[in-house]
């Protein structure tokens, strides 16, 4: 059974089509990324999954249940980190987790939950004094209460510092390892790339594509290019680099051999980069600057979401 399934889901607000004809299937146990620029309809879609907003047409099934018919059943098995949420500013973090534990009728320990998201020591502090990052950690912790079958995380990395993002990744991986389906939306592509099995890209209310991260990268230039600035360009450098596996092409740009310049190395695997740098230095050059041009999801994203009729109403 699919964890999330939508069939021809559309949502119209007055005259505007926020979401058009979305067919999405998230399989049980996968980590699914939901990408798109602001205003793409991601939030409206997630709001429909959570029964905050009702579809104009189409059907939604979460863990085999229609969220509009049986919101309780869905929420009972789902952990949610919504967007634009607020807490009780005057109550402690612990009190919030206790409320969640009460409502899930779970026997989780609030102290454990808060420790998992790195809020140990702040349990008794009023949430009103929490930073944005701490609130986001608390919201993530609340989503984890009662070991849900499905985690729906709307922009989970927003407001988190690098440490928080690492915690988030670890938690997503741990949950996925335990068989939890994770559905997370983001515009921070690195996050999605790092943890997701499959990705859907949405723009202007429609679903552009659904594919694996690798599959998406293949549709674009699969290589990444390492650009090294060097004080001198040794003669043998091109040959030495070409000997490396997984190095595709080497381009040398220098005023003349023996003078400073740049070496562009196209790698079919980004893991070869440090070896390439080592070879350049072995050849007798000092690397003064390193730049990497990755075919990241960012490029992919731009390729998919750039619309020829940009700025014009469709």
């Amino acid at each position, binding site marked *: 059974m699919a964890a999330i399934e939508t069939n021809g889901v559309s949502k119209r607000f007055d005259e505007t089509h926020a979401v058009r004809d979305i067919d999405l299937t998230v399989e049980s146990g996968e980590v699914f990324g939901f990408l798109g620029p602001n205003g793409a309809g991601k939030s409206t879609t997630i709001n429909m999954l959570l029964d905050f907003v009702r579809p104009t047409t189409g059907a939604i099934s979460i863990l085999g249940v229609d969220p509009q018919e049986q919101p309780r059943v869905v929420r*009972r098995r789902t952990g949610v980190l*919504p967007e634009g949420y*607020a807490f009780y500013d005057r109550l402690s973090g612990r009190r919030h987790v206790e409320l969640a534990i009460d409502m899930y009728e779970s026997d989780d320990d609030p102290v454990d939950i808060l420790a998992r998201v790195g809020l140990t020591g702040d349990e008794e502090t009023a949430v009103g004094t929490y930073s944005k990052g701490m609130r986001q950690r608390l919201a993530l912790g609340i989503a984890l209460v009662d070991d849900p079958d499905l985690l729906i995380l709307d922009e989970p990395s927003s407001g988190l510092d690098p440490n928080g993002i690492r915690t988030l990744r670890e938690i997503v991986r741990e949950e996925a390892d335990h068989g939890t389906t994770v559905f997370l939306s983001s515009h921070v592509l690195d996050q999605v790339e790092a943890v997701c099995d499959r990705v859907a890209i949405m723009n202007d209310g429609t679903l552009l594509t659904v594919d694996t991260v690798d599959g998406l990268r293949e549709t674009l230039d699969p290589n990444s290019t390492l650009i090294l600035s060097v004080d001198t360009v040794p003669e043998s450098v091109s040959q030495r680099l070409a000997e490396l596996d997984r190095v595709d092409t080497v381009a040398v740009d220098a005023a003349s051999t023996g003078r400073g310049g740049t070496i562009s190395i196209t790698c079919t695997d980004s893991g070869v980069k440090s070896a390439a740098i080592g070879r350049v230095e072995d050849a007798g050059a000092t690397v003064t600057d390193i730049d990497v041009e990755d075919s990241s999801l960012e490029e992919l994203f731009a390729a998919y979401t750039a619309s020829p009729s940009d700025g014009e109403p469709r």
Partner: protein
Amino acid sequence: MNSVAAIARTDIADAIHSRTLWGTTGLMTALVAISWLSLSTELVEQVDTPLLTAIDSFGLWVPLVAIVLGYEAVIGERESGRIRFLLGLPSTRRELIIGKYLSRVSVLVTALVASLGVLAVLVFVRVDEIPLVPLLSAVILLVLYGLAWIGMAVGVSSIVSSKTRAVAVVVGLYALFGPLWGQIVLPACVRFGELVTGTTQSINLTGRLTYADEPTWFLYVARLSPLEAFDAARYYIRDLLEIALVGGQTTAAHGPNLFGLAVLLCWAIAPVALGVWFFDRVDLE
């Protein structure tokens, strides 16, 4: 029901920390106390049951506390985004409204009992007696009256689309049932009655309404306003309690007075029920 209780408990815990709540409760207590202390000694000596006269001024102030407590109960959660947190947890929209309603009712009842306690002490100091039955009837009536207003406020809060509108509507209702009721609505009803029946009735509409000589329909219409229903029920509930507990009798007509109590109960329930119906159908963006 577990979710309702969990939401209500958390909401109460939050409300207890609210300065606005305690400020308004303190103000209500002070105003009720001042009203009582400023009554002339002759008047106090004349009245049947001083405590029931003293609670008269609650009629004006309870709605204000109830409005402060209730107007943002649901729409405030929507505007702040807290509803996303609460509805992300295992609960339904209906449970959310009912949990909020129960929480606000508990807080209001606590505030009213505290206020009434202070007033009862002041009454005791002045007239040296607090009969138990009138005190009990005062508690019952105040709770019922408070429920009516908090029901209206929470109901409105579940229906409107912004806090500003919620304030506008509940204050509008207060104006309608308070000043406008005696000045405009009831006189208009009387004129209408005259047109329909072709008779001229002498109804004294100056100042507080009196209920001696009016035609029966008028007694019913007047009590549609919770303020009037409250005012009219003060001695009636006492009479009912005496009949039930110690034996007694009443000169009050049962029809319009029971109707008044039913009206209060309706205001306590119907707007919330309507609110649940509306709220179940709205998009929470």
